[in-house]
């Protein structure tokens, strides 16, 4: 059954803050083979004008996608998670995520449509720091493949 388009605009409560740690950033940077000191060395980060080490651009996805689970598993929306694939991903940055940030995500259903039997859902995650300032907006397009065929 196609997703109900009346859910466009539905917003979910902000998530519990995620505290960004230096060592988690280091682990992520190493996992993607990064060697840029701005991710691991506070002195190198400060030399570029950052108060502490920053996170690689896609690090925040782990946080925003966890928040998007509120949408994905919303029983009223009725998305079949077993059929979901990640179609598109985009980020708009106000500033880089950095060590010491406490980040909370507000997820909103930005669009819902059905194309060729597939449900296509765009979830926007607005990521704020503890002072309430917007840090980054993540847009995740999920495609739930039609039940009959691929």
């Amino acid at each position, binding site marked *: 059954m196609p997703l109900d388009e009346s859910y466009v605009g539905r917003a979910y409560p902000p998530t519990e803050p995620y505290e960004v740690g230096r060592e*988690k950033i280091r*682990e*992520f940077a*190493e*996992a*993607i*083979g*990064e060697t*840029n000191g*701005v*991710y691991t060395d506070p002195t190198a980060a400060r030399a*570029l*004008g*950052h108060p502490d080490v*920053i996170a*690689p*651009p*896609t690090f925040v*996805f*782990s946080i925003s*996608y*966890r928040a998007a689970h509120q949408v994905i598993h919303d029983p009223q929306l009725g998305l079949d998670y077993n059929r979901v*694939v*990640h*179609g*598109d*991903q*985009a*980020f*708009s*940055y106000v*500033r*880089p995520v950095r060590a010491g940030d406490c980040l909370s995500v507000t997820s909103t259903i930005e669009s819902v449509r059905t194309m060729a039997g597939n449900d296509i859902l765009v979830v926007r995650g607005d990521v704020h720091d503890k002072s309430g300032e917007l840090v980054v907006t993540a*847009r995740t397009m999920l495609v739930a493949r039609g039940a009959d065929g*691929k």
Partner: protein
Amino acid sequence: MTAKISYDEVEVGTELPGQSFPVTRETLVRYAGASGDFNPIHWNEKFAKEVGLPDVIAHGMFTMASAIRVVTDWVGDPAAVAEYGVRFTKPVVVPNDDKGALIEVSAKVGAKLDDEARTVRVDLTAVSNDQKVLGRSRAVVRLA
């Protein structure tokens, strides 16, 4: 933000230094742990084949993370990236051998967007096993 590339020294068509990123099963296990994405299609061959994939595939977000390194290495300060988006078009298939897969990324300046904000659009191409694995892969970058 401290970009080491000046807006004035690039033009539409300027190529960024390309890079190749090797991906093995070990890479995927590490990325799973670091990112928290433990979907078995990224480490369990039996499961991947059961759901119709040719083999274990890389996390799309790993490919996305790798591709932007061509931009961040070029510009020096990752904070110069104002926007970044991709479409996942084909999976990166990672065989269980000593070679794994290779993600080859090239990039060029696609447009100069704003003379005052000194922003450019960089268009990225990511290829693995002769197939484009990312589509509409673009970053908006603030230059010096």
